[in-house]
Structure formats: C-alpha cells, structure tokens
C-alpha cells in the first residue's frame, strides 16, 4: 500500500474536487477505514464489472475446465475412445464405463472428452482467423478511407452475402475425403476451420471499421497526428487498444456460432469420421439408439449444450462489462 503523499500511485477522492488553494495539504479522511481509492483504468473497471457477474464467471470457470479436459485428454486416465468393448454395447453407466458405452462399445466418457476437440478446434482457431481478418481489414478500411475503403467494403459485402453454412457443407462434402487422406484422418477439421475462418469475418470487419471511423475523428488521434506519430503507430497504439474489448465480445459469440455449425456438420455425417470421436456424431448416433439406452445421446447433448450456452453467457457478461452503457 502506498501512502497518501504519493500522488502518482493513489488518488484521493477529494483531489480536484476540493477548493483550489488547499495545495499540498493532505485531504482529511472522512472515515477512519474508508480506505484509499485506487487509481483505475477502463479495463480494470471492466474486469471488476465482469467479476461481479456471477453467471459470466461461472461460465468462464466451466469453459476453462472443459477446454483443459479436452487439451489434457491424453494424460487423463481414460479408456481409448476408439477401442470397442464388444461385451458392453449400449450399456448403462458402470464402474468400468462411468457414463456407459455407445452402440459400438466405445467408452462414452472418453468419447465425449476427446470428441470436444474437433468442436473446440474449429470454434477457437476459426474464430482467431476470423478476428485477425476482420480487425485487419476493418482497421485498414476505416483508417485509410477513400478508394481502399470503397474496395474493401464492397468485397466485404460480397463475402457477407455468401451463405457460410452452405458453403462449408458443400466444401466438406466435396473435398472432405481427400483432405482426410492427406492429413491422416482429421483433414476435414482443417478444411472446416479454413472455410469458417475465411467466410466468417465480414460482420467483425464492419464493426471494427465503424469503430475506427469514429476514433479517427476524436481528439486523441488528432493529438497523436499533430505530434508526428506515424500512421502505423497510431493504429497499433491508439486505435487497436480501444477496440479489443468490443472485439473480444464479438469473438466470444462467434466461437459459439462456429461450434454450432461444426457440430451440425458432424450431425449430417460430414464431421470427423468414425472411429474418431466427435460430439455432434455422438449425439446423432446416440439418438438412433434412444429406445435402447437414452443416456447415449443425452450425455453428449448435455455437454454440448453446456459448452455452447457457456460461450453465450460469457459473451453476454463480457459485453455488459466492456460496454458500460448496457449495464444497469
């Protein structure tokens, strides 16, 4: 804790508000244990608002746990998800198979955890590509304006009009088998990620472009210009830091959307091919045996539900935290 006399670290509430002429005199404390008001920044305020949101914090914890489980699946004491247990097919939970098995005797718990990987990979990596493209193109169009802006905006309009899901569906249906062979079994995950990444960026580009346009007119950018800051530095130091909070919100919603689309593709039989586990195909295969063992589809469906809804709530919480206007 710094002392009150160090004005660079702490900022007493009365500073600036008090009458002039009080000078170096330390402000009198109102209450003995009122504490010092810490200096704060926009991002620290946002973090505080976010942490006060219980639903969003819970979602974050759940997501970290799910992602950690998927990443560390190889080190967890799990049965090989591709191994058939011919004596336990469509079985209910037992000591050997904690969540039971599916119709080919795969351990359901292990299949669910390994099956998270394709969905998370497409969601997160695809969203990273989308975000880089969207932010890059958006800032360039908004900052430089003119012909470049017109060109990039028309291009964005075109890509925006492409039906993402249909394109991904068609691409995977046509090229999936070849890519699988080329990459050794998981090629279509790369393919799906590429398609989503390349087609998903237009909303983000429009958003970042609009933000950049408004920042460009503001005084802090004008001030940076007037002291001779280079354009590149204005973009990286002054404009981008102001967009990242709102971009993060959009990206969080986007991950949920990509996972939705990826699991839909695997539901249609276009996702990771058996025997490799995949959440979407676990749900749909389980649903076909629902009269034999209802848990087979309900467990993976529940995990998928938690995953997608957690991303949605996290995005909601982030938006309320970053954009103070929507908060109450």
């Amino acid at each position, binding site marked *: 804790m710094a002392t009150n006399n160090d004005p660079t670290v702490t900022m007493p509430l009365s500073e600036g508000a008090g009458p002039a002429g009080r000078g170096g005199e330390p402000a009198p404390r109102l209450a003995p244990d009122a504490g010092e008001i810490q200096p704060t920044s926009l991002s620290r305020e946002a973090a505080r608002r976010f942490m006060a949101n219980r639903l969003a914090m819970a979602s974050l914890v759940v997501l970290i746990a799910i992602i950690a489980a998927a990443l560390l699946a190889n080190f967890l004491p799990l049965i090989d998800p591709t191994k058939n247990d011919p004596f336990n097919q469509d079985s209910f939970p037992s000591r050997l198979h904690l969540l039971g098995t599916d119709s080919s005797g795969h351990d359901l718990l292990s299949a669910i955890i390994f099956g998270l990987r394709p969905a998370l990979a497409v969601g997160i990596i695809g969203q990273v590509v989308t975000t880089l493209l969207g932010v890059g193109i958006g800032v360039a169009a908004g900052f430089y304006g003119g012909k470049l802006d017109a060109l990039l905006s028309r291009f964005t309009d*075109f890509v925006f009009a492409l039906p993402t899901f249909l394109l991904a569906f068609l691409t995977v249906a046509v090229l999936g088998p070849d890519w699988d062979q080329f990459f050794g079994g998981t090629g279509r995950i790369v393919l799906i990620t590429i398609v989503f990444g390349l087609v998903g960026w237009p909303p983000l580009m429009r958003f970042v472009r609009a933000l950049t346009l408004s920042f460009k007119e503001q005084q802090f950018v004008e001030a940076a210009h007037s002291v001779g800051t280079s354009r590149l530095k204005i973009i990286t130091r002054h404009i981008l830091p102001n967009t990242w909070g709102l971009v993060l919100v959009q990206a969080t919603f986007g991950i949920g959307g990509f996972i939705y689309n990826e699991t839909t593709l695997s539901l249609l039989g276009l996702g990771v091919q058996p025997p490799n586990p995949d959440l979407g195909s676990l749900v749909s295969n389980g649903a076909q045996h629902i009269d034999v063992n209802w848990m087979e589809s309900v467990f993976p469906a*529940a995990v998928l539900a938690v995953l997608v809804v957690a991303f949605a709530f996290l995005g909601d919480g982030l938006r309320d935290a970053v954009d103070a206007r929507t908060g109450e």
Partner: protein
Amino acid sequence: MALLFFIVRRLIAMLFILLGVAAVTFFLVRLAPGDPVAQQLGQHAGDVATYHRLYHQMGLDQPLWHQYVTYVWNALHGDLGSSVVSVGTPVTTIIGQGLPVTLELGALATVIALLVGVPLGILAAVRHNRLVADNLSMGVMMALYSLPPFVIIPAVWLIFGILLKNTFFHLPVSGWDGIGDPQYWIAPACVFAAGLAGLFARSMRSFMLEELNKDYIRMARAKGLAERRVIYLHALKNTLLPFASILGPTIAFLVVGAFIIENEFSIPGIANITVQSTLSDDYSVTLATTLVLAAAVVVANALTDIFYTVVDPRVKL
C-alpha cells in the same frame, strides 16, 4: 430519386452476388471426385463409344467457364439438369417435391416462434429486471437461441416418443404427412421454432427497451395515457421497424435449421435431399438445391436492406 437509385443498385449487386455464389458452388462441385458419366452409364461404362458420346452430350468436353455459362443460361430457363442417380428425373422435379415441404415447415416454425418470442420479449422489456418475466425468461430464451436444435431433439424423443408411448401425447419421431396432419409436424416445428423464438424474444426485448426510454414515451405517460396504450400503441409500433432488420438472419437461421430438423426427423424437404444427394454423389442435385437455398439467403438479405431503407428515411443513402 436517390431511393430509386439505391434500390436498383442493390438489386444489381444482388444479381452479381447470386452469380458469384453460383460460380463458387459450380466450381466446387466440379472438384468432386467421381465420374458423372460413368455413374450414369452404370454397368455400360466400359463401352468407350457410348462413354464419349455421353461425355460430349453432358458438355464436359467444353472449357469450364463455358460449362458455367451454359449452366446459368439453362438454369434461367428452368433447366437444372437431371439426376444421375435416379436417371432421367429432372432436378426441377426433385426440387418441386422437396421445396414445399421445407417452406411449410419453415412457415410453421416462424409462426410458432413469433407467437412465443414476441410476447415474451415485450413482457421482459416492460417488466425490465424482474426475476421471472425478464431475467429467468430471457435466460431461457438465450439458451434456446444458442443451443443447436439437435441437442433438444433427444430430449423430445425421449419424452414424446418413448415415455409417453401409448398415451394421447405420443408423437411419431419421423415422417411427414403434409401440413394437414399435425402429429407429424408438431415436434419438428416446435424444436425448429425454439431457436427462432429465442432470437425474436431477445431482439424484441432490446428494441422495446430502447423505445421505452425515449422522450415521446415519457410525453405519452406525462399526458396521462393508459400504460397499456403507451406500450402497445406507441412503443410497439416503433419496434416493428427494427424488427424487420432481423428478417435476413432469420432466413439464414431457417436454412441451417432445416438441415438439422429434416435430417433428424426424416422429413423429405430440400435440405434433406441436399444431404442425401452428397452421400450418393448425385452432384447435379446437390448443386441445384444448394443454389436454391443460397439464393433464398441472398435475396432475403437484399430485400431486408431495401425494405429497411425504404421504410426508414433516416438511413443515409
């Protein structure tokens, strides 16, 4: 005048986008493995002379761009080629069988979603920050919106297909018997509507909240109008305009949803036909049905844009 220019420009842009989408789909499908000629000939594929004749007949010896132009030209004249699997059946006939089913299902889902989502959204805005009407109800709507329908489907089957078997509430888990036979469409249409209801409710809530905070509402209240009149006459009318802006996303949502619902409930709609055709390498069908669905999305987006601009004079041209 500026408005007319805008509409014409937007429609021309739409045509170019449609051509672009057609090109992307066309060339993608041409990359597909498999030989459509051999597929069509079946056991006669060994006959070289017949093979070359058919190869020429299908126009495959032409340069790719020429094939594309021919395809678009024929498509504009109502000829989308014929199926390779059920030889000789025109693709237009196949689409003609599937499209009405998809449209009926989509319309049913939209109506159900409107009936559920819009009132809940209004209620949440009017009772802003109340536990049941706003927080809980909108939490559920958020979950419904973000959940893929196939997560809900196992639960529906479990309850209505298995647990309630032999009761009045039992519902068949697959099949389609037209709009006149509700027992087949109730379950799929409700699952389909769930996500859309979430979208409608959440959008309606935010549009309504925005309106209710405006000055003219305070004015209406100040002059002593009944609260019901303020909300349902003054505020609600003004939410209709922003509500039109979610028409585009709605169509995109319906297209993705159709793939899930038709596949899971074995409904012979156009999305199901698309999936089946990729499984049997019947790419002329895949190409045509994808184009129809894509065109629906593109046209809906364009119409949303135009409608919005025409109705709202504040949109800058």
